[in-house]
């Protein structure tokens, strides 16, 4: 037993193991507390339907957080790109390719602005992205004038609707499959691609990274750009699910998304993180509301328990980190 606890795998995967244990315990509580809900499929289908909307962004945001940076503007990037997608899709009578290309290009442009503000102008990311958070949401309000955009006529029943949100075998929502595949791909990039490697180095020590020949600014800019892209991508999923754009779209995503990243064990100081952890973080944060209500507690407990979860998870990680040093 002692050998197992001291093994290389355990030593190098402490964070992942801790977060998995937390998730297992949580789901055990759900299971034992509300077996009538958690032994049936519909609750899991609901999870699979709703989690990818913020899960995809959380996976992407893990790259930015590992850099020791933060992006608070993605909820508004979701807003402006979803609006663009809806408007272009209706204006082109359902041309998916043009709508997708424009929405994601705008997402990447928004990410590029964040990246340039942080690297070239030198504004701390928390401040720069508060600015762009208001800017893009403001633009949504100005363009939409508070009105929504319905895409039901040009999207419902189309092949792209099927591709994004239709249910596989009538059970598994397509967005969940997308989420799983993207998580796998991003994990691979995060740990085993040169870019992911550079993300870790820059987040760990910017000056050393520079001396080792890593282009620190470029790494940061690309990280913000990919988050812009995936914010747009997640927005498009929401559009297909709802078939409607409303001007506040995306604005509720900020805390759940960042909570999933931090509960997942990515260090706010940078240099260390895990995509698998963020994935489990999404399962935890995304299941809390339904789980708490199913357990018979009132909805008023949701935030309280959410807070408790986040605080205990980050405390455990801080203690693990302290033990290491």
């Amino acid at each position, binding site marked *: 037993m002692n050998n197992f606890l001291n093994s290389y795998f355990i030593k190098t995967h402490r964070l992942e193991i801790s977060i998995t244990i937390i998730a297992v315990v949580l789901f055990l509580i759900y299971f034992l507390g509300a077996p009538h809900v958690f032994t049936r499929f519909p609750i899991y289908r609901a999870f699979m339907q709703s989690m990818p909307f913020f899960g995809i962004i959380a996976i992407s945001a893990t790259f930015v957080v590992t850099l020791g940076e933060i992006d608070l503007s993605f909820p508004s990037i979701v807003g402006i790109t979803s609006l663009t997608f809806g408007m272009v899709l209706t204006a082109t009578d359902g041309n998916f390719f043009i709508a997708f290309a424009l929405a994601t290009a705008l997402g990447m442009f928004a990410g590029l602005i964040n990246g340039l503000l942080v690297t070239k102008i030198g504004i701390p990311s928390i401040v720069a992205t508060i600015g762009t958070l208001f800017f893009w949401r403001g633009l949504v309000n100005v363009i939409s004038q508070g009105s929504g955009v319905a895409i039901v006529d040009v999207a419902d029943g189309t092949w792209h609707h099927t591709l994004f949100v239709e249910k596989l075998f009538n059970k598994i929502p397509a967005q969940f499959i997308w989420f799983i595949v993207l998580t796998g791909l991003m994990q691979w990039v995060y740990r085993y*691609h*040169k870019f992911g490697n550079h993300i870790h180095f820059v987040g760990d*020590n910017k000056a*050393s990274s*520079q001396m080792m*020949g890593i282009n620190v600014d470029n790494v940061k800019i690309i990280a913000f750009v990919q988050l812009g892209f995936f914010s747009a991508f997640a927005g498009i999923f929401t559009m297909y699910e709802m078939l409607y754009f409303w001007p506040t779209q995306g604005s509720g995503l900020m805390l759940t998304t960042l909570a999933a990243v931090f509960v997942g064990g990515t260090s706010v100081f940078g240099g260390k993180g895990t995509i698998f952890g963020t994935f489990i973080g999404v399962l935890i944060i995304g299941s809390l509301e339904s789980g708490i209500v199913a357990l018979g507690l009132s909805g008023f407990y949701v935030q309280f328990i959410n807070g408790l979860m986040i605080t205990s998870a980050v405390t455990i990680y801080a203690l693990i980190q302290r033990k290491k040093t």
Partner: protein
Amino acid sequence: MTEELLQLKNIYKNFGNVKVLKDVNIKINKGEVVALIGDNGAGKSTLIKVITGVHRPTSGQVFFKSEEVVMKSVAQSRKMGIEAVYQERALCDQQELWRNIFAGREITNSLGFLDIKKQRKEAEKILRDYIGFTSKAITVDSTVMGLSGGEKQGVAFGRSLYFDSDLIVLDEPTMGLSIQETEKVLNFVKGLKKKNKSAIFIDHNIIHVYGAADRFIILDRGEVVEEFNKDEISREALVQKMIQLHESGKIKVEA
């Protein structure tokens, strides 16, 4: 005949209104170890950052292997054969050694994914053969965080040897090291000469510098103020020279 490796001509470097380097002219020959001596703020670190591509000079020319070069980045200078072992050791604490050794020079496939197997194998070779780590406690999977100052320095040296650089820049390599570890570093510098490699060696300790270097360049407030070959000056005389320079006001005296 001595073969020239690096030449700096009329190098100036300003940071805003502050003139950090003023008309610096330096030559380094092949197989030569040159010591840069000077007080804090003399411009030593800035000078080596110009040589290694961290900073671009405000004006002046750099020649490497007789060709004029414009050093735009660290990646470029490394590619040309200039490697730095910095005071800060240029290592990232939380990352494993197999990642640190190849940082910025990863072995990848055409899609940019790391060849982990090869990187680990080569890192293992560097740890055992180039650095001579024998302790089982240090493996390619160890993070830098757990290493001593000397071990960190060893990793930085091993990296420079592995990549077969022509010019190795050592920025205060003995700072904060034990006597034993310092000895290892000085032996490493002497070993470079045998391999016909060149080095620029920065250190505050004249005794360390004298043992390892062939030539001494004294910098003060961004200018080269004196230059000696080792056969022109004894260790004691070099110490005396530094004191004289302090007293004559050419070199700022520390309070």
